[in-house]
């Protein structure tokens, strides 16, 4: 199994959870100009479980419209199609994996960290004038490779958790040592499989090592947001560890101290409500 590479891994995951077709259609449509919103809304509404969860989420205060969203059409009118898409994506992804039986993997901590990163990335993106909806999605999915590995290959990845605990090193280093690849590669392939935008796939693949760029990128946003939520110690993990920070990415975002304070506070305040809404 140690010779397995990331592509082989994903090729073997034939039962990789599919996102609801209506959401997949929506994600694809949002990458085009000619979006037939009404038809998409009807299709989404037919998936009652997804709609119920998305509406519960849409009524969270962090969307700023608490209690006013009662239907998918309301959500489109009040939130806009892009914010609705973030709510649907969170609802769909949260329900797509069974609880992994993998020693060392803590699903509750995983979701708290992912949700915190989504909220923080959204706040950072708004601060630096990048797309907050894409940032939320990329933050939510940045570690999806870890969940996919734990859910589908617990016996393969469990030694990496043990190695990480033994040496007290970042999980990515442990994965690379034990598996020969890491969760960023698997996560990017999962996101491609789910038809997420290329910038989201890139952010997942490079969130530990943002590429050189002249201006700030979505990957920079997710990288810094990931660092922030580790530093805020939000996942309820005993051996939490803040990973290395790319000074280039940090410099490109150029967050001031007061902007950081607002981002920290907003992330902490919104996290519990978001987790409650998704029943995580």
């Amino acid at each position: 199994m140690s010779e397995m590479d990331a592509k082989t891994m994903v090729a073997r995951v034939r039962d990789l959870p599919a996102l609801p077709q209506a959401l997949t259609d929506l994600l694809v449509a949002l990458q085009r100009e000619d979006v037939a919103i009404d038809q998409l809304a009807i299709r989404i509404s037919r998936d009652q479980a997804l709609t119920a969860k998305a509406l519960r989420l849409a009524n969270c205060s962090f969307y700023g419209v608490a209690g006013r969203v009662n239907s998918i059409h309301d959500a489109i009118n009040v939130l806009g199609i892009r914010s609705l898409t973030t709510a649907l994506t969170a609802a769909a992804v949260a329900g797509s994996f069974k609880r992994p039986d993998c020693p060392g993997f803590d699903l509750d901590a995983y979701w708290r960290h992912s949700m915190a990163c989504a909220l923080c990335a959204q706040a950072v993106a708004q601060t630096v004038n990048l797309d907050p909806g894409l940032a939320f999605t990329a933050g939510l999915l940045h570690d999806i490779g870890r969940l996919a590995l734990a859910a589908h290959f617990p016996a393969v990845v469990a030694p990496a958790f043990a190695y990480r605990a033994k040496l007290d090193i970042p999980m990515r280093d442990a994965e690379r040592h034990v598996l020969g690849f890491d969760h960023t590669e698997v996560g990017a392939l999962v996101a491609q499989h789910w038809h997420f935008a290329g910038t989201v796939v890139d952010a997942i693949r490079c969130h530990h090592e943002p590429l050189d760029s002249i201006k700030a990128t979505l990957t920079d946003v997710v990288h810094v947001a990931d660092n922030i939520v580790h530093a805020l110690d939000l996942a309820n993990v005993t051996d939490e560890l803040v990973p290395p920070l790319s000074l280039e990415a940090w410099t490109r975002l150029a967050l001031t101290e007061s902007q950081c304070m607002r981002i920290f506070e907003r992330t902490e305040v919104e996290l519990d409500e978001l987790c409650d809404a998704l029943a995580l």
Partner: protein
Amino acid sequence: MIPDHQALRGKDPRSASLVEVPATPAPSKDSSERLEWLFRESVRRQVIHPLLGRVRAYRAGDAT
């Protein structure tokens, strides 16, 4: 003791030898030592992490 896992970087990750590190107990979440401890990876790398000062100021509530 500082673990020598930096030796892993830049090599075939599976070629590096496993380095035993004595377990250091994690400070509890409400401990005053907890925040600095979270940044132990940067301490080991001997680099300053820009977020440490910002989060310390945020926790102290004394940001300007």
